[in-house]
């Protein structure tokens, strides 16, 4: 399905949903970085696309001119309800200070190093169980049978909601992020998600547990309980931010290993390389692009940005900038100097980055331990999702 007209001018008329960009954006970024490092388009509103590390990180730090009140890469088209259920959106991701500061602090301890360690055994068991389900077949879809199944269950565990609903959660998250240009799908998913969490919040209120939702309901800020809309927003955010992103990282990493036998061999034979390799795979296949909204007219690097313009925070392209990374387009598993910004830069640094790293490492460890040799299934198609989150959606492999 072609949803937009094909792009011929990437500098002045780019489209991140263009099939070419989704399948292989790397060359496009390399060309833009040298010819037009902050590209522009009027598709879906006036939008800028920086591709250099320096620009992306500088914009991320300039919260005065570049606000997080709109972080969706694909803008919502249609009527906003008069009394929205989430008047503040999904803080902290969709907030600027001061709201950002304290809502972020509510979430951070749930994803601290120590907490994340306590989720590791559960994650490992989950990965191993998934592999049990297909290892005898000699083939699997590494994206839909494996990568996609992991983060949603870990998040369900943290939120204290039923893992039996994982497919429903995954569907909602995909409709919000991956199919964001399909108005009805997006609206229905948001509604489904909110209705579900409204019910869960009521249940927790009657019968609190030791999960994230119950804890948020117990928390008081300045002597008063947090507004329900903020609890709902935080729960929805953790689900939306923690699922598609991490499964895309796991899927891209498995795609890399399926197509680069030398790297796969090295990771099997030298498990010590794992922690650097995880960072390198995150750098090379960064899944997440965010957005900012320009607050007041400003000229940045010669570009006349107007209040209301959108900036796409191209962390993935920043991570391939040859000014900062030697042989940027090559995966060097033990790359020693790797200041990547796959998890963002500045005050919105991914609150779940410790969790995401653990999940990626454990998912790769378990896969490589049980399936050290695998390759793409010949003649079958690999498909990629793009836009806000990039990663493989179908990844048939044989072993």
């Amino acid at each position: 399905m072609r949803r937009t007209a094909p792009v011929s001018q990437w500098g002045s008329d780019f489209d991140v949903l263009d099939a070419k960009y989704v399948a292989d954006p790397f060359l496009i970024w390399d060309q833009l970085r040298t010819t037009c490092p902050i590209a522009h388009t009027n598709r879906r509103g006036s939008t800028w696309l920086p591709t250099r590390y320096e620009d992306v990180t500088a914009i991320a730090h300039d919260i005065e001119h570049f606000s997080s009140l709109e972080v969706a890469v694909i803008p919502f088209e249609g009527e906003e309800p008069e009394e929205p259920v989430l008047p503040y959106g999904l803080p902290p991701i969709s907030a600027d200070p001061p709201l950002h500061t304290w809502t972020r602090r509510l979430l951070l301890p749930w994803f601290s190093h120590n907490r994340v360690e306590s989720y590791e055994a559960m994650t490992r068991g989950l990965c191993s169980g998934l592999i049990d389900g297909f290892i005898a077949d000699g083939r699997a879809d590494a994206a839909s049978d494996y990568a996609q199944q992991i983060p949603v269950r870990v998040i369900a565990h943290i939120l204290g909601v039923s893992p039996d609903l994982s497919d429903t959660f995954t569907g909602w998250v995909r409709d919000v992020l991956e199919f964001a240009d399909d108005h009805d799908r997006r609206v229905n998913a948001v509604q489904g998600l909110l209705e579900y969490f409204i019910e869960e919040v009521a249940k927790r209120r009657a019968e609190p547990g030791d999960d994230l939702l119950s804890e948020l309901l117990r928390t008081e800020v300045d002597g008063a309980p947090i507004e329900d809309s903020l609890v709902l927003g935080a729960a929805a955010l953790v689900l939306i931010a923690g699922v598609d992103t991490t499964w895309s990282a796991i899927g891209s990493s498995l795609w890399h290993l399926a197509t680069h036998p030398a790297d796969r061999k090295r990771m099997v034979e030298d498990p010590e390389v794992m922690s650097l390799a995880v960072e390198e795979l995150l750098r090379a296949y960064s899944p997440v692009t965010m957005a900012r909204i320009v607050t007041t007219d400003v000229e940045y690097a010669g570009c006349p940005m107007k209040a209301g313009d959108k900036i796409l925070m191209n962390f993935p392209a920043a991570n391939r900038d040859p000014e900062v990374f030697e042989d940027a387009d090559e995966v060097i598993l033990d790359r020693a100097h790797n200041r990547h910004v796959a998890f963002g830069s500045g005050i919105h640094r991914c609150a779940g980055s410790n969790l995401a790293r653990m999940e990626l490492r454990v998912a790769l460890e378990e896969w490589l331990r049980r399936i050290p040799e695998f390759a793409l299934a010949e003649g079958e198609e690999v498909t990629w999702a793009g836009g806000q989150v990039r990663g493989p959606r179908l990844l048939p492999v044989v072993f």
Partner: protein
Amino acid sequence: MKIRVDPDKCQGHARCYGLAPELFEVDDYGLSTVVGDGSVPPELEDRARLAIANCPEFAIEEV
């Protein structure tokens, strides 16, 4: 060698802790601080330099 973390720059990426857990502590909110007074034993100097070179916020410096 002696190092410090600038608390105004640190955003809690935890790369330092991942590379050299002997040299850094990260609190529940992600903020990193150096262990002790930041003195680095000679055998850990290479890893201290790695931490400096991998911090995405340029928050770690040699003092």
